[in-house]
C-alpha cells in the first residue's frame, strides 16, 4: 500500500468539501462494493479515479452526490454529516455524467433536457433560457435546440448530456468515462471544456493519457478499497503499481512514441480506376481477393449517403484498420460487407459477383463483433450463445460441441459454459462475443471498437487474443495503439468515402489527417512521451527531454 495522506497537498485552514470516513457499502446480495473508504476531497481538486472494471468507482461517486445513502462509516459534505434532508441540495450542486447519454436525455427536446436541472434549482425563466443557450452553444448544439434526442448522433447526445449538467453550474463535476466511443475530435471538445471548468472535478476513466492532462490527483481503487491516493505524476511514474492494478497502459507506448511526421502519403492499394459505366470484373491479383468492392455506394431510405463510391480489396490474411470520425461510414461499410446493407455497385466475394442469394449467405463467411456486447449477447448461458451461430448453420451433436469448446478456449473462457453472459464482466462479455463469431469459422472477422470501456488489463488480454487469431480482420477503432499493434493496413474514411488506403506505418506518420477529419493523435503521443520520461526518471535510468 502506498498510502499517502492528503497532507502532501497543503490545505491549511480549509474545510474539505467531502470527508469520507471508513465508508463501506454492500449490495443487497451481501457482496461488498466499497470497503473502508477514507478520502478527503477539497474544493478545486481535480481527481482521476482509476481502477479495474468493477473496482467500485461508480459506487463511490454515487455516494458523492447522494444516489447511494451511507450504510457504514460517514460522509461529511462541507463539514456537516450528510443527512437525508441535505440530499436534494447536494444533488443540485453536483453534476454527474454517466456513460450512456440516453439516460440523461429523458425529455422530448434538447431544450427541455438542458433546462431540467436549472428549473429544479428554482431559477427564473430568463436565467434558465440564457443558461440553456449558453451551454448548448458551448458544445456546438445550439441549432438543434428544439430537436428530440433520438434524432442526434451518439457524439451529439454525449455533448448534449454534458450541457444538461453544466447548465446547473455545478460546484462538483463527476464524469464516468466521458469520452468512451468518441472520435478524437469530439474527445478534444470535451477536453477543452473540462480544462476551462474551475470547480472540483472527478473523472473516472481508463485512459490515463486523457486523465494525465486533466487531473492533478489520482485515486486508485481496487476491490472496493482505495489503494493509492497521490499526485498523478507519482501514479504514472510507478509502473509496478500500475501493473498490479491492471492499469499498466505503458504496453501501449511500444508504438506511438517518436515517429517523425511526414507529409507525403502514397496509396498502398491503387484505387479502382475504371469509369463507373464500364464492364466490371473482379481484380486479377496474384492472390485472389477475398472480397472486393468497386464503386460501391449505399444510401439510406431517407436519402442520406452512408457510403459513397467505395473501392476496396480485402485479401486473405489482411489485417485492416478502419478509421474515421464518428459517422464517417465505417459501420455502414461493415454492414455492406456483412450483407446486411444492400448497396449499389460491384461487390465480389472470392471472385464471384454477389447476388441476392450470395448476400444472404454472407453471414457464414463474415463474423461481426459489435461495439456494445449487449447488442449481441442474448441467451441465458455462454454455451447457447456460442452455439447459436453454428446451430443456424445446421450443426448438431459433437461437431457443435467441438466448435463451442474450441471457440471458448480461443478466448480463454474455458469453464464458462454455464455462466450467464449478462452477469459477466465487460471484458469477459467482449471475449464471449468474439467466441460467438469465431465458432462459425468466419473467413473475415470485423470488430467494431472491441476495446471500448475495457480497463488496460482487459485491453492487453484482448490484444493478445486478437493477435493469436491469425484471421483476416477488419478493426474499427479510434485507438492508435491497436491500429499499430493489430493491423498492417489502414483504411481512412471521411463523410462516407474512403479517403486513404495505405500501410499502417504510413497512416501513423500521416499528420495530414488532422486537418481532414480531426484524427488528432498528437497530444496523446505528447502525453505518452512525458509519462515515459517520468517512468524512466523513477527508474533512474535516463531522462528524456520533455518538450
Amino acid at each position, binding site marked *: 500500500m502506498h498510502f499517502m495522506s492528503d497532507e502532501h497537498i497543503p490545505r491549511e485552514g480549509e474545510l474539505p468539501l467531502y470527508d469520507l470516513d471508513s465508508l463501506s457499502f454492500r449490495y443487497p446480495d451481501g457482496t461488498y462494493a466499497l470497503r473502508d473508504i477514507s478520502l478527503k476531497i477539497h474544493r478545486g481538486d481535480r481527481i482521476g479515479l482509476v481502477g479495474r472494471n468493477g473496482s467500485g468507482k461508480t459506487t463511490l461517486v454515487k455516494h458523492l452526490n447522494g444516489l447511494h445513502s451511507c450504510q457504514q462509516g460517514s460522509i461529511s459534505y462541507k463539514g456537516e454529516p450528510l443527512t437525508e434532508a441535505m440530499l436534494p441540495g447536494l444533488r443540485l450542486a453536483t453534476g454527474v455524467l454517466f456513460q450512456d447519454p440516453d439516460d440523461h436525455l429523458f425529455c422530448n427536446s434538447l431544450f427541455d433536457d438542458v433546462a431540467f436541472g436549472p428549473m429544479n434549482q428554482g431559477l427564473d425563466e430568463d436565467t434558465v433560457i440564457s443558461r440553456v443557450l449558453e451551454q448548448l452553444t458551448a458544445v456546438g448544439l445550439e441549432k438543434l435546440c428544439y430537436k428530440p434526442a*433520438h434524432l442526434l448522433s451518439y457524439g451529439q447526445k454525449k455533448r448534449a448530456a454534458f450541457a444538461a449538467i453544466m447548465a446547473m453550474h455545478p460546484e462538483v463535476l463527476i464524469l464516468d468515462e466521458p469520452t468512451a466511443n468518441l472520435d478524437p475530435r469530439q474527445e478534444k471538445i470535451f477536453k477543452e471544456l473540462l480544462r476551462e471548468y474551475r470547480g472540483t472535478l472527478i473523472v473516472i476513466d481508463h485512459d490515463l493519457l486523457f486523465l494525465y492532462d486533466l487531473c492533478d490527483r489520482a485515486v486508485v481503487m481496487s476491490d472496493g478499497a482505495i489503494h493509492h491516493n497521490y499526485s498523478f505524476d507519482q501514479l504514472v511514474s510507478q509502473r509496478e503499481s500500475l501493473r498490479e492494478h491492471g492499469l499498466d497502459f505503458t504496453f501501449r507506448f511500444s508504438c506511438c512514441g517518436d515517429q517523425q511526421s511526414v507529409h507525403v502519403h502514397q496509396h498502398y492499394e491503387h484505387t479502382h480506376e475504371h469509369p463507373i459505366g464500364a464492364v466490371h470484373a473482379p481484380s486479377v491479383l496474384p492472390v485472389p481477393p477475398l472480397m472486393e468492392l468497386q464503386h460501391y455506394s449505399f444510401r439510406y431510405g*431517407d436519402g442520406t449517403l452512408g457510403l459513397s463510391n467505395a473501392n476496396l480489396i480485402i485479401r486473405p490474411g489482411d489485417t485492416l484498420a478502419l478509421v474515421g470520425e464518428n459517422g464517417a461510414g465505417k459501420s455502414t461499410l461493415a454492414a455492406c460487407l456483412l450483407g446486411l446493407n*444492400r448497396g449499389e455497385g460491384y461487390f465480389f466475394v472470392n471472385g464471384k459477383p454477389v447476388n441476392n442469394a450470395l448476400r444472404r449467405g454472407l453471414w457464414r463467411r463474415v463474423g461481426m463483433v459489435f461495439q456494445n456486447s449487449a447488442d449481441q449477447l442474448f441467451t441465458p448461458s455462454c454455451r447457447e450463445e456460442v452455439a447459436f451461430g453454428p446451430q443456424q448453420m445446421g450443426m448438431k451433436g459433437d461437431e457443435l460441441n467441438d466448435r463451442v469448446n474450441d471457440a471458448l478456449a480461443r478466448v480463454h473462457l474455458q469453464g464458462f459454459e454455464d455462466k450467464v453472459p449478462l452477469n459477466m464482466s465487460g471484458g469477459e462479455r467482449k471475449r464471449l462475443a468474439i467466441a460467438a463469431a469465431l465458432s462459425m469459422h468466419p473467413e473475415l472477422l470485423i470488430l467494431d471498437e472491441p476495446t471500448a470501456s475495457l480497463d488496460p488489463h482487459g485491453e492487453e488480454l484482448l490484444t493478445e487474443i486478437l493477435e493469436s487469431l491469425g484471421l483476416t480482420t477488419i478493426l474499427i477503432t479510434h485507438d492508435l495503439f491497436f491500429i499499430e499493434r493489430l493491423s498492417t493496413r489502414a483504411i481512412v474514411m471521411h463523410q462516407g468515402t474512403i479517403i486513404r488506403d495505405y500501410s499502417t506505418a504510413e497512416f501513423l506518420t500521416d499528420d495530414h489527417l488532422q486537418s481532414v477529419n480531426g484524427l488528432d493523435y498528437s497530444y496523446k503521443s505528447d502525453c505518452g512521451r512525458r509519462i515515459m520520461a517520468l517512468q524512466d526518471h523513477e527508474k533512474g535510468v535516463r531522462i528524456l527531454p520533455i518538450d
Partner: protein
Amino acid sequence: MTAHPEIHIPLTTLASIIGGLAVLFVLFYWSIGGKRAKRDSFRTGDPDWSVPTIDAYADRSSFFHQWDPRIKIVSLFLYCFMVVSLQSLCWSTVAFTISLLAVVACNIPFARAGKRLLAMAGFLSMFLLVVPFTSPLQSSETLIYLPGLPGFPFHTAGFFVALLIVVKACAIALMMEPLLGTAPLAVTLQSLSRLGLPDSIGQMVLLSHRYIFVFVNEITRMYRGMRVRGFVPGTNMATMSAMGNFFGMLFVRSFDRTQRVYDAMLSRGYAGQFPSFVRFATTQKDWAKGALWIMMGLFLLFIDRMYGNPFF
C-alpha cells in the same frame, strides 16, 4: 326469401370491382409514401420498426395550431365522442368530410393522416368482408349473390352497417392530426394535466415516449446481432426460443435502464415533478372555436337522430 330482391353478379363484374379497389388501395398507399419505410428496410434488411414523431409539424401555423390546447382538446375530444354516437351513414359521411377539411386546414401533410387510415385498414376490412356475409337477414333488404358462393348471400344491410363503422372510424382517426399534431406533445400533456389529469400520467407518457425511440434503436441493433449469426425467423421452436430470449433481454435491459434514468433524474434535482414554464392564455377566439366544434357535433347528432335512417 322472395321478399328480398336478389342480384346476381357475374364473375367479370366482381373481378373488376375487386381490381378497382385494389388499384385504389395501391394508389392511396403510394400517395402517402408507404413505400419509403419499406425501401429503407429493403436496403438495410432491418424490420420496419420506425415510430413517427407525433409533433413533427407542431411549429407550423393554422386554425388548430393557434388554439389554446386546453379548449382544443376538450372540444375536439367531445366532438369525437359525438361522432361515435352517429347512427346514419349519411351524416357520418358528413362528419368524415368535416374531418377531411380539418386535416387540410391543420397544415400537416395528408400523408400523416393517411398513414393513420392505413393502420386501421386490416381491422376495418375485416368488418367489410365479414359482416355482409354473417349479419342476420333483415326485412326487405337486397341480397347479392356472388359467383361461386350460392349459399352465402351478400347482405346489403350488413354492408351498410359495416360501412357506417368504417366511415366513423376514419372520421375520428382523421381528427387525430388536428387534435394531437398541432402542438408539441409536452404542451398537449401539460394542458391535459391542467384539465385535471394527474400530473404523473402526463410525465409517464412523456418519458415512455422518449424511451420508445431508445429501445427501438436497441432492438434494431440486437436484431442485427442475431442476423449476422444467421437468424431468420420462421414458424418453429427455434424462432420462439430465440425471440423469447430476445424479449427477455429487452426487458432486462429496460429494467436496468429504469434505474440509470432514475439516477440521472435524481442527480439533476428531480423531486417528483417535471418543472415547466408552459403558460396558457385563453382568448375569446379560443372559446369561439371550441363552441363552433361542439355546436357542429351537436348539430350532427341532432340531425342524425331526426332525419338519419339506418341504411343511408
